[in-house]
């Protein structure tokens, strides 16, 4: 099932860059995600959030990551021979994401390495940089993705 796809390991060379327009977050979406997965007061309660160190409601960092994952899926991941991810090296939440913020995602391939033990696949190290509408970087993520090699899938 991972074969017969449009994109393989070879299609993610180092230096490749993709820019994706992301969603505008609403207060309701921020609260809904957080009520399920991260119900800290500054993610679920506008009044309490005003008195927090953030001075207002902010999105859960995991919500921001999840929205970016969806962007990657829609951009190319669903058309790729993806075998999932073993690891994310680092996630940094650099700036709060607030209701009304519009996200933009820049993905860059940092490295691509064929697997030594499994010749049918390779690992791609990518960096996500997420910006808000003011151009402030709100999040970065360095993570690995595993993909089948073209000769293995086609």
């Amino acid at each position, binding site marked *: 099932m991972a074969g017969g796809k449009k994109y393989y390991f070879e299609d993610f060379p180092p230096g490749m860059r993709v820019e994706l327009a992301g969603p505008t977050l609403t207060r309701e979406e921020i609260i809904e995600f957080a009520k399920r*997965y*991260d119900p800290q007061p500054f993610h679920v309660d506008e009044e309490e959030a005003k008195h927090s160190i953030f001075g207002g409601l902010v999105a859960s960092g*995991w919500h921001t*990551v999840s929205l970016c994952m969806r962007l990657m*899926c829609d951009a190319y991941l669903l058309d790729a021979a993806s075998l999932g*991810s073993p690891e994310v090296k680092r*996630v940094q939440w650099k700036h709060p994401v607030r209701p009304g913020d519009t996200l933009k995602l820049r993905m860059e391939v940092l490295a691509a390495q064929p697997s030594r033990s499994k010749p049918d696949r390779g690992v791609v190290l990518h960096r996500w940089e997420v910006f808000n509408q003011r151009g402030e970087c709100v999040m970065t993520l360095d993570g690995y993705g595993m993909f089948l090699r073209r000769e293995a899938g086609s």
Partner: protein
Amino acid sequence: MAIKYYWEDFRPEQVFEIGSRTLTAREIIGFAREYDPQYYHTDEQAAKNSPFGGLIASGWHTVSIGMRLLCDGYLLETSCAGSPGIDELKWTQPVRPGDTLSFRSTVLAASPSRSKPDRGSVKFRWEVLNQNGEVVCSMIGTQIYLRRPAAS
């Protein structure tokens, strides 16, 4: 909710065991349809022919459930003021429908802020475990906590 625990209450080598929650196929598919609709997260039939041999949860779903367990365990009773980031996030075992997840938080280090005397950071190892005691996901997480006010 009233704050019970401040920065001073976290000391290296403390371990918190929290749990648990059993995942259904419906929940796995529900999260994935919204945030990570790769076929092995959304389609039970197609997933059987995937490298995973069946439906598995999105790694971000596993992390999010870990976060919820952490919140319910103690985080909502703390002075936590967010997280600057995490390191070494690893998914070491697939999470499948029917798996019961629990959470283990181990304090690695605690340091006061140099620039802001009202707070400090705490570094943790966070692990999500399944019903067999296998670690399915682990990471190093850093959080900021306010220090205990002088009067209390």
